[in-house]
Each structure stands twice: as structure tokens, then as C-alpha cells.
């Protein structure tokens, strides 16, 4: 016997932390870490439904395996995009251009 509320609460906390990581980071790899946490939360909800649902259907567990595999493919492509970004600009700072535009606007007003 287990309370399924506990895994659901943990999934909600993980999703919130992941959203915070996506929004509050400016290093591209750290944004990717936030995405991984959100995907982990989705997997936890799926596994909890599979293990505590009334139907006893293993389809949700299979879906979790699919999510994990697709996440691996996603990270491979994200790494390639990051490498292309680094070769083109010399950094992976997602806010560098925003900062540059902001400074230009300040200079234009002054």
C-alpha cells in the first residue's frame, strides 16, 4: 500500500523546478538540465499511473520507456545545436544578444 499522492507531489515539484531552471538560466546547457527535469516529472507521473492505476495496464510504463528514449534523441540533437552555436559565436550564453540590444537602446536614449 502506498499513497499515490506522494509521487504526484514529487512530480509537481520536479516540474516546477525544471520550469524555473529553463527560465532562470542563461547558459544553454543548464537550460537543457531544466528540460531533463520536466521530462523526469512526466515519466514519474506515467510510472505512478501504471503502478497504482485500477486497470493494471502496463501501457503507461511502456510510454515511459518511449519518453526516455525520445529524450535521449532530443539531447543528442541539442548537443549538436549547441556545438554549432558555440562554433558560430564562441559562447553559449543565451542572453548575450539581449544584453547587447539593451545596451544599444540605453546608448540611443542617452
Amino acid at each position, binding site marked *: 500500500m*502506498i499513497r499515490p499522492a506522494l509521487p504526484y507531489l514529487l*512530480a509537481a515539484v520536479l516540474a516546477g523546478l525544471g520550469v524555473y531552471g529553463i527560465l532562470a*538560466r542563461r547558459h544553454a546547457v543548464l537550460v537543457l538540465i531544466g528540460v531533463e527535469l520536466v521530462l523526469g516529472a512526466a515519466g514519474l507521473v506515467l510510472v*505512478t499511473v501504471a*503502478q497504482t492505476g485500477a486497470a493494471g495496464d502496463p501501457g503507461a*510504463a511502456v510510454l515511459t520507456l*518511449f519518453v526516455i528514449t525520445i529524450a535521449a534523441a532530443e539531447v543528442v540533437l541539442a548537443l549538436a545545436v549547441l556545438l554549432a552555436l558555440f562554433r558560430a559565436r564562441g559562447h553559449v550564453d543565451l542572453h548575450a544578444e539581449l544584453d547587447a540590444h539593451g545596451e544599444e537602446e540605453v546608448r540611443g536614449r542617452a
Partner: protein
Amino acid sequence: MSGLDVLFVAVGLVTAGAAALSVTSRQVLHAALWLVVALGGLAGCYLVLGAELVALVQLLVYVGAVVVLVLFALMLTRAGGVPVVTGVPQRVAAALVGAGTTVLLGGALLSAFGWGRVPIDGGGSTEVAATIFGTDVWPFELLSALLLMALVAAVAVARAPVGGQDDPSQRPDPPADVEAVQGERP
């Protein structure tokens, strides 16, 4: 609280704490290593929930492959002095959005599933295997094509010319060579 509840709370606290550190740490490498702890703790949660196969796949694919890729990304894009966190206003806004996500998702899930206790009666590995190779066999086979396409696309994207300029030194071999090679065949 039953023993499983206590076990899950312990593993879940480790997972949540490591996740919080991985999104707040100012050291890029520390954040990646805390992600290892968080994803390993998530595998522990799957074990407590009785999904052994998913837990092992999580350990193999996430901790074994995804985190290694993240570490590779950190190693290959190393540039000293890259700022890691945004300004205070954006962090406050991000914390508000994250807390809102937690409250919304947690409230929806708790109101849907309640606070009661249920037995763990998910299918074992036999049922999962029967589903993978029975009902879901086509998605399963398509996943291998997806992984292959991701691999090829990653190589293509990573080798693309920088900044959209067609640098002759990075251009692939001209097609004349290919025709010449093919022309030699009978």
C-alpha cells in the same frame, strides 16, 4: 504511513533536493553532477513504485548516456567567464512561474487522485514486454529509426558551415568525385 511511504519520502526528498541544487548551482559542472543525483533518485522512486524495468532503463539511458552527453556539451563549449544565472527580476519571475506550475500541477493531480492509499499492482516485466512486442511493436521499431535519424542529423548539424557562410574548406567533397567513383563500376 506504511514502510513504502517512508521509503518514497526519503528517496523523493533526495531527488527534490538534488533537482533544486541542479537548477540553482552557479557552478556549471556542479549543476550537471547534481542532475546525476536527481535522475538516479528518480530511478530509486521507480524502484519503490515497483517498476524495476523502467528504473534500470532510466539508470542506463539517463545517468549513463544523457548525463555523459551533457558533460560532453560542457567540455566542448568551454569558454571561461560565461555568466550562468540571469538577473534578479527574471529569477524572481521564473521562481513565480515555477511555483505556479508546481501548485497547478500538484493541485490538479491531488484533486484527481486523492490522498487515499492504493496497492501497487502494476504489471511486471513480462506484461511490459508483451505490450512492447505486441500492441506497441510499431512505435518501438520506429524508435530505432528515430535514434538513427537523430544521430545522422546531429552529425549534419554539428558539421554545418559556421554562420550560414559557405566556407570552402568545410564544404563536403564535390559531387564530381562521387560520379567518378560510381562511373568505375560496371
